[in-house]
């Protein structure tokens, strides 16, 4: 069924995706050539390749699009973006779809949102990434069984001085957090 529901900004689904993607207006010019899916390292695992997804977006199929695994398969290699003959910023469309999917609580069947939340949570707290904190928290809460397999790897990283058990903090954490707080207010995002 075609979903033509408008969001609170009064935008149709397609316009919403366009508005949330810098340069997103190019989406209307998709030729359905399939260069994107053909270039994608994870295309084979996607519910819909980007080409199909763009057709669904243009057809207003909001629920199908936002519950697809397509954008969560995207690891930002930019191969599609670099090859798109219509200059659609495909990787950035994928980011916009990830954000919309999270906002609408429609992401499922992937641990990618949990990884993203854990990562940015640590960034907000320390100003730097904290790999041991990220790995331990993310695996503990999302993949406890995989933690066993990660043990030997973690140990060999640790013995080579490639893993620290304590985070590094930036000096002007207050400044960074004030910027983050203001950006959240202005963006109104999660």
């Amino acid at each position, binding site marked *: 069924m075609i979903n033509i529901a408008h969001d609170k900004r009064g935008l149709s689904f397609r316009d919403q995706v366009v508005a949330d993607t810098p340069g997103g207006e190019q989406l209307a010019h998709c030729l359905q050539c399939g260069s994107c899916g053909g270039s994608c390292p994870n295309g084979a695992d996607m519910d819909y390749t980007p080409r199909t997804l763009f057709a669904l977006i243009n057809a207003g199929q909001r629920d199908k699009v936002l519950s697809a695994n397509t954008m969560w398969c995207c690891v930002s290699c930019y191969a599609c973006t670099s090859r798109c003959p219509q200059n659609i910023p495909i990787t950035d469309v994928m980011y916009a779809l990830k954000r919309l999917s999270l906002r609408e609580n429609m992401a499922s069947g*992937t641990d990618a949102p949990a990884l993203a939340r854990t*990562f940015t949570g640590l960034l907000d707290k320390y100003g730097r990434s904290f*790999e041991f904190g990220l790995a331990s928290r993310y695996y503990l809460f999302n993949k406890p069984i995989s933690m066993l397999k990660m043990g030997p790897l973690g140990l060999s990283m640790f013995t080579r001085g490639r893993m620290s058990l304590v985070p590094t903090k930036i000096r002007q954490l207050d400044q960074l957090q004030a910027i983050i707080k203001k950006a959240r207010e202005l*963006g109104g995002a999660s």
Partner: protein
Amino acid sequence: MKYAYYPGCSLECSSAAYDVSVRAVAELLGIELKELDDWNCCGATEYFSQDELTASSVIARNLALVEPDLNQLVAPCAACYLNLKKVDHLMGEHADLSAKINQALAAGGLRYQAGRVRVRHLLDVIHTDIGEQAIRDKVVRPLTGLRVAPYYGCQVVRPYNGFDDPEQPVKLDELFTWLGAEVVDYPVKTHCCGGHMTQISEPQAFELHRRLLQNAVEYEADMILCMCPMCQLNLDAYQNRVNGLFNTHFKMPIVFFTQMLGIAFGIEPKKLGFGKEIVAAEPVIRAKLAPATQPSA
């Protein structure tokens, strides 16, 4: 030549070998790197997945922190390089986004004008600003007899680089030719390593690792040269797990290009972070290369 230097979080610990080799090689080449004071994490790919404006503002803080007397910022990490470059680009193209980012920065007493800082990748600086002759002049231990696979990965060459071809980049190939190495044809040189997919879906990521390793073996490379911490981590630290899943026997050293640059310049392996990689690289170096012709730097 003086540049602001953004090491990025990976180079602080898990890719410390990249940081020490970058600093050692830069010093020898007369590239003055001044670490950006109090830099913060670039958010990798994770922040853009959640909140575009916050992601951009967090990155823009670093651009705003570049001292007024410096106008170039060097980032060796592919993800940091891309993010810094991307935000500068987005701010230049989209005035509304730029205004909002500056409103957020103002809450921290900062401001950034698009185009003020030129973000450079270290490979570009070494290849373009230092150039062939100066590099050749520094070689005391030619990499003759060593076959290297130049692995560019994704985020340096796409989509903003401006210094090399996104499909068929050659700058790393050329650099290693100057050092005397045999640069193998590596058709997958810009293919993806899977990035963070290793943490999300191992079978999906391990297949991408396998292809990259298999291709290097088929082209009889002695090692893979990386310019990204994520690529190095994925191919090095997970190589054993890849072997377990596919019943393969890869034993391919994965090193940062700056480490081998340092070897060619006669710098002690310990000062270049060798020994931190999981698949040992030094036995291959000892087996393939003659000792330095002059005392080490």
